[in-house]
């Protein structure tokens, strides 16, 4: 693939892939948007943190209305928005704090077994 349109086989490959995303920050959110619009098979979000002011300004997937977002984690909010972008992608939420790279190598192996790609 070199920036051209996806072939049928590539689209099929994409739609069979499952991705784990941990830590809904700026660039990660952008990635999620792109991969969902492109038509990934399924996406699992992992970020139990609550909405902060910083997150509100940087993350376009969070609805600005306080009543909507209060009490729900970043992962849950992003999940709703992403489902809206492309209803054909299964977006789900996994409980857990965003993983820190060094600390989580052991946990990574266990979780990552069920995914094709893990993104932190």
């Amino acid at each position, binding site marked *: 693939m070199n*920036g*051209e*349109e996806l*072939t049928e086989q590539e689209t099929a490959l994409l739609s069979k892939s499952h991705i784990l995303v941990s830590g809904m*920050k*700026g*660039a*990660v959110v*952008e990635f999620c*948007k*792109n991969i969902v*619009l*492109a*038509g990934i098979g399924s996406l699992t979000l992992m970020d139990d943190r609550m909405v902060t002011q*910083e997150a509100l*300004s*940087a993350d*376009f997937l969070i*609805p*600005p209305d306080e009543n909507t977002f209060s009490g729900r984690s970043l992962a849950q909010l992003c999940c709703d928005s992403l489902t*809206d*972008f492309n209803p054909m992608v299964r977006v789900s939420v996994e409980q857990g704090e965003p993983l820190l790279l060094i600390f989580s190598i052991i946990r990574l192996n266990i979780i990552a077994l069920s995914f094709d790609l893990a993104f932190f």
Partner: protein
Amino acid sequence: MDTIEVSNLNRQFLFRQSHVGQSKAKVARDAVLRFRPHINIKPYHANVKDPEFNVDFFKQFNVVLNGLDNLDARRHVNRLCLAADVPLVESGTTGFLGQVTVHVKGKTECYECQPKPTPKTYPVCTITSTPSKFVHCIVWAKDLLFAKLFGDKNQGNDLNVHSSNAASSSEHVDVFEHRVDEDIEQYGQRIFDHVFGYNIEVALANEEAWKTRNKPKPIYCRDVLPDRLVSQNGSFDKFCATDEPSSVSAMTSLGLKNPQDVWSLMENTKIFLEALKLFFGKREKEIGNMIFDKDDQLAVEFVSAAANIRAASFGILMHSLFEAKGIAGNIVHAVATTNAIIAGLIVIEAIKVLQSDTKSYRMTYCLEHPSRKMLLMPVEPFEPNQSCYVCSETPLSLEINTYRSKLRDFVEKIVKAKLGMNMPLIMHGSALLYEVGDDLEEDMVANYAANFDKVLSELPSPVTSGTMLTVEDLQQELSCNINIKHREEFDEEKEPDGMLLSGWAQAPPMEKDNNMPVGNGESTPSTSQAVPLKPEEDDDIEIVPTEIKTIPAGTKRKISELSSTAISEPSSATDGTRSTKKEEEIDGDDDVVVMLDDGNSDISKKKRLH
């Protein structure tokens, strides 16, 4: 003025499937309001070149952000911003490349100070007689054959190869005309044999041309499809009477499903004949005023097949429909991430402008491959170009044959095409030679029409060597003086227009894979001599939420409105922080580090702005 198409949905995330067909400006506005309810957005579904958007209109704004997809409109907006003295943030993307530039009158270069690459054009004889690349075959199929068969009959066309036989060139019978009651299949085969068989034989007769080149092979229908009968009435029964004209397809009726397959000569021939048949059978009304549209499936099929057959004849590799479509439509596939990066940079520059932080203005170039681990290359803006005719009012010079060239040629090829003027006014001293406008008196209109077709030296106020013409566009508030110099001969290959404009910096023709700032999709009206490719970006540049869209002059899309947004002061407390936000949208990841004051070696020749 664009509407939402299905192909936009994979990256223009403000739009949903239910919005297809609606105005981009209006839907984008509604979508943005949903996550930022307290801003003031006014959508205009219109063409930015409409007279409604005059200097006074532009003066309302503190900054203008461009997300246009053609050079013509960009130049127009540039001139209006100069006239209104409003800073302009320009931008563009093509594939993995992109750039954002800031233009402030008097302080920095204007958008036109540096020459922009013009679309690649090919010499006429390469297209008509000696193609050596597949793209030459595409241009032939699209701008010559397709235009001849389905386009405006009155347009001059170089399709018939010049033969040495004087008698045949004065034929009154148009070979390409579909004769009344002629069976379509027979017509198709006749056309096929003429362009791929007869014309090639004629070309072969010219021995000189082939001394250093491979000779083409004539191809006749009977050789490729020996069993094909003339009357094939049966094929029409396959279609039901309610077939939508726009969904008619030769591929479908022939069972060729994959647009990425490279077809054989036989398959291409079948597609050629089938497509021709379908045009005449199902879309007859359009014949005579069709322009090639890359989104017209049947047109793409016809052009691809024709190009492939010609390629086969000249020993050039054939291509799949998908590849041919890309070349014919000048499609450069958009990369969502590039657009996102550029969009972010636009906002960053816009914030600097709103804060009048002039020292921080940057021209930022997004590279395809990181250079020294950096993907983005910011440089300080340059001072205005003293010889830029747009912002510095330098006179230009034009060499032209004043006894042969008409005013019409001057207006179309120089004033509109090269100078980018929309509604020009041409004066010789105090004499008005030509004018475009809505409120002109009848006798003036008649006068201009008469002048239009006159040779320059025979105008009421004769134009000869040494004359100075003044050319103006009132809407753009641009005035330009041109010194005319008479010249007898022009090189047909290098100066096919028969004119040479100087003092106007022109860049060399753009190659498909060079590194100059890109994304300046251009459109030029096609001239009858050089045969230019008309680049169009397949996927519109998405700059959200401040989007001003327009279409190039002369394309077939409907004229509708444009969108502009005026970011007024945030009125509510919750949004109070927006105008002072300094965080970059690209999160604090390590990967992208923007280093300042580190320019390219060639750019460092220019003076930096301090």
